[in-house]
């Protein structure tokens, strides 16, 4: 069965929207973080789709880059989250507002 490219793209858009919504409405920092990962992977999906569609390998290479950055970001991000939890005893984003005027 041949799946049209647009389906992949629609899935990618849905995943991305899901990520954005999660990012906006969730209060737990961990969930927010996971939403970011979701958005990244949604983008990865559209990269792969286009690469396949146009027979261009650049898109797939770029996916590797994104995954690499995401891995590094996960390491640093989790470390920061742990540090925040140690310092403030909470992971509720509404209470992490030290930058407020």
């Amino acid at each position, binding site marked *: 069965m041949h799946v049209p490219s647009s389906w992949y793209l629609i899935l990618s858009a849905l995943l991305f929207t899901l990520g954005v919504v999660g*990012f906006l409405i969730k209060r737990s920092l961990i969930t927010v973080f996971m939403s970011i990962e979701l958005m990244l992977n949604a983008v990865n999906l559209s990269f792969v789709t286009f690469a396949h*569609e146009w027979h261009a390998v650049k898109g797939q290479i770029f996916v590797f880059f994104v995954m690499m950055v995401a891995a590094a970001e996960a390491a640093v991000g989790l470390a920061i989250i742990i540090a925040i939890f140690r310092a403030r005893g909470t992971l509720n984003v509404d209470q992490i507002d030290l930058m407020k005027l």
Partner: protein
Amino acid sequence: MNLYLWLIPILPLAGFLINGLLGKRLPKALVSTVALLMPFAAFSLVARAAMLVWPGNTSGSLAIALPYSETLGSWINAGSFHLDFTLALDQLTLVMLLVITGVGFLIHLYSVGYMSHEEGYWRYFSYLNLFLFFMLVLVLAGNYLLMFVGWEGVGLASYLLIGFYYEKKSAADAGKKAFVVNRIGDFGFLLGMFLLLSQFGTLSFSEIGTALAAQPALQGGILTAIALCLVVGACGKSAQIPLYIWLPDAMEGPTPVSALIHAATMVTAGVYMISRTHGIFDRSPFALAVVAIIGAATAFFAATVGLVQTDIKRVLAYSTISQLGYMFLGCGVAAYSAAVFHLMTHAFFKALLFLAAGSVIHGLNGEQNLLKMGGLRKQMPVTFWTMTIGVFAIAGFPPLAAFFSKDAILYEAFQHGSLGKALYFVGIVTALLTSFYMFRLWYLTFFGESRAENHGDHHHHAHESPWSMLTPLVILALLSFVGGWIGIEKFGGFLSPVVGPVLSPAELPGGTTLDYILSGVAVLVAVIGLGIAHLFYGSKNDRAANLAASASGPYKLLVDKYGIDELYGAVIVKPLLLASQYLLGWIGEGVLVRGSAWLLAGTATLTGEFLRRWQSGNLRSYSAWLAAGAAVLLLATLFFASRVAPGFDPNHVLMLHINSNAAVR
């Protein structure tokens, strides 16, 4: 053979810099040495130049032909307009240089004695040297702009020296007044320069002279406009009606300053300027008539005010204005060489009179009121005799200097049509007044009994001045005596390459007889002035007081100087102040400046008040804005990209294209 003209002004500038920067720490003797050495060196250079260019000097390669000029470098290069730092020497400049450096040096020498007890000794001498620098630039300049630099510079030096006793409010005010009134004149000068530039495209004296010679038909019109603008400048600098009001107040400065700047040199700059640009004035009979009328009116007007002044320096100040009026009269009847001749003799005898007056003031510990002097003949013999020569010279007694120069001006005025005859009449009446008020000053100062308030104490203090002050007096007295003997024919002959030939009595209607008659009238008038002064002030009597009482109206008018200062105050200064206060103060500063400041600050505050609610510190609100921004950008791309970059179709990039591809496959 090089004349090193550039060194002449640079030397006093060096003196100014040395004394101005280091003088405070240097001993007095060194300050005086520097201050005296520089003008003397400049004078030596001028004397050397004079010897090299002397008409009789034909000693081979040493002789230098006039006009001679040195270009020190390019100043302005803008399109078709070029201007160089050019110093030019011709006969007129040479006369001015000799007067400025010669009399200037003598007055420097005198100042060493006069200012010896003053605070700020070094400051005084640095200013004096600065003045010499600018004055020399003024007369050496080869174009109008460089002349204007000197012109402004002498105004600055004059301001600094009038306000030398700056702790005294009257002195500071007088300095300001002189500066502001001079600015009005400078404005005219500037306008004249702009007109010259638009008409001739150059500001160089020689190039304008060439251009004028090439257009013999060019008369009046634009030239009248240029000449009248320049006359405004000359009136400001040379204290002529209507801009004379600063000069009497300028007497607040130290007396040697009055002698150097406000009698001998700076105030004659206007006369020099008119003589220098006579090519333009000659083409405009109207402008010449204006100059002549201004000159005669000022001469008469200032002389009448001088009749009743009681401050010795103010009498001399009004007499300076009056004598400058004579010079203007000379210029106005195209007798430039006579005007410059009078400029030279006036520099001698008026410097002498001021310095002698300074010696009197010095001897009386600062007393300037004529009514409190008297009987100084015995206590100050040298001052008395030198001043006597000065008084007889200015009154026009032969064979002293002013007799020849004043006579030359009056004779040429008489030969200058019917207007000239009328002006001659004004001039001769002025000569009568001059003679009277100078002898009044002479009698009041040196004769009779001392009228000082604390009699014994005063006698104790009245003393003759030191020799450093008396030497210049004696030299200037000598010059005032013999300065006119060269005669207008020879002097005019010397100047004729620059300012045109002098009239020769033998070839004119009336012949030499008329010349002798007019001279006789002038002498007669001077004697009458002496006689009247003797009648009133020669012995102790009440005649002067009685006359003043019987004609109290005119007397008061004269004492009040015709109320011109008050008139200007009411008509010009007051409206200007009010306009500044209300128009500029309220509308300009209040509305525009403060309003715009408030507007800007208010806008920023209000915007900030509104925008700061954005910065909630809430992470999710930030991210929501981020997402919204990204969405807006994307949508904008979708809608506008094709318009901004034709041929770019977002749909192409997205679904549709892919779908069509899929269909093909």
